[in-house]
């Protein structure tokens, strides 16, 4: 199970990084989204992976619960990364509309074609 989660996070990270390394804004934003998935799962997983032990206190049973703290942290992280994503989308859009290019590298002039 641990290997599964770790490898999934690894794939998410790798895909995210690859997209972040693209030269256009849109894939970069997608890459950042994938990265934020990866980091959320990562952070979450540091609280250990257990099934059916949600940290909802039960009045009746003396149950065991998973670690709630990473969940709270991930929640905060999700929200923050949502805000950031929204903002970066808007900046990308603004930059594209103002400069007529969605290249992310300022080195790449619109004419430079496929060698960027």
């Amino acid at each position: 199970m641990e290997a599964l989660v770790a490898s999934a996070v690894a794939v998410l990270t790798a895909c995210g990084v690859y997209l972040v390394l693209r030269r256009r804004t849109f894939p970069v934003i997608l890459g950042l989204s994938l990265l934020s998935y990866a980091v959320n799962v990562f952070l979450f997983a540091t609280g250990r992976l257990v099934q059916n032990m949600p940290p909802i206190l039960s009045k009746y049973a003396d149950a065991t619960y998973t670690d709630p703290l990473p969940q709270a942290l991930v929640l905060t992280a999700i929200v923050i990364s949502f805000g950031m994503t929204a903002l970066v989308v808007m900046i990308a859009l603004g930059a594209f509309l103002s400069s007529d290019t969605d290249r992310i590298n300022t080195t790449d002039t619109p004419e430079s074609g496929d060698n960027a």
Partner: protein
Amino acid sequence: MSHLIILPIVLPAILAPFMLMVVRHHLDLQRIFSVAGTMAFLGIAIALTAQASTGDIHVYELGNWSAPFGIVLVLDRLSGLMVLLTAILALAVLLYSIGTDWDKRGHHFHPLFQFQLMGVAGAFLTGDAFNLFVFFEVLLIASYGLMIHGGGAKRLRAGLQYVVYNLLGSTLFLFALGTIYAVTGTLNMADLAERVAALPADDTALIRVGAILLLLVFSIKAAVLPLHFWLPGSYANAPGPVAALFAIMTKVGAYSILRMYTLVFGPDLALSSSLVGEWLLPAALLTLAVGMIGTLGTRDISRLAAFSAIGSMGTLLVAISMFTPLATGAAIYYIVHSTLATALIFLIADMVVERQGPAITPTVPMAQSGLISVLFFIAAIAMAGMPPLSGFLGKIMVLQAAANTPQQTLIWSVILVFSLVAMVGLARAGTMVFWKTPDGYEPPEPSDDADEPEDAVLSARVSRLPFVAAFGLVAMLVAMTIFAGPALTYAEATAEQLFDSEPYRDAVLRKDAQ
């Protein structure tokens, strides 16, 4: 119970939404509120610093949950000083922005400005690692907004890079926090310190990774090579006053390094001791070199300011990376100097850019060039670390702190050689901007002395507020110089407090009460 500690966070956090709700269509009112708020912020910061200067550590337990279970704010000498520095800088920058009407060029400058203050103050005051992340994000997102304030294609593209790079940094922050939490099971810094110290010696690999990742995160903020790439583009393209305000942002990184790597991963901790300084020092030296080289190798005055900021950070980080009380004292002194000087040079760069464009080859004659050239001269002296201003004293402090260390020769030669490079670069830029007559332009008046009457006419037309702000910063630099003795005493006391982390931990974890 004194609620003073939380005020630097709560005050702007209330002021900004209030402005958004009530006065978002009235710039004048916003200005009044913003200035009043910032002044109050300054007052609070002074009170806090006074409180902290006794050497006591004040802890504020949010939600009345005791550490490490809730979040605490901790006021010690360093955090008090940093908040005070923020307040001073903020006031100057705010006055400048109002005086130059920069706040008119886009929406919501003042709320964002207040939010930025809140984020910075929170980052300085918090005693919780994850809360630090949250405040990093607050100050970052506010900075994104301020950076692209006013819009424009170039600024937006630079802003995009800035945001994306910092988002990567934020991601890394979470990876680091996750790792650290997994190993230690806590987020409170004082508690972390206890737990990290108690870790078994045969299980250090992961906490080391956590420590280094965290260091890298802070290094991004502090613009350490090779994680500094976000800085030149964004600072050079940000509105001038915003770039000046950002002078404190790099210091947040420096502050965090100081805090974390004296408190949690202290220099006498075996598992991380070889890790931090060993890498940070060469990186800091490289940062210094690249920054100073940049001042020589750029034709754009804003970029010049940006690179000098990098160079200044390099010097600061050299001091930090030695992790001795002496060096840290120097670093703390230098933090204050560097913030003020960097802000000053960005303000002046903005004055120049506003009058004749960003290139250092002049195109049109500049209004008030006399006054501006004086300011530039002062700022350049400060940035290059020339006497008599505090930069020189700071440099000497760093050099002295490096004496008798194994890397003395390296540190000394890098600092001194690149001071020269910076000096040449700044002199080159200054002479070209202020002394060279624009090609094909015949000055109607050969004199552009600040004291000439035509300048009086000009300054009546142009607001004096920007100059008040700039000269305010100069005055602070001069004060830093004249009162260098007491300042250094405070800095060294601060450094001692940092390296003696026992009281901090006791105060936060309320050991005395137990």
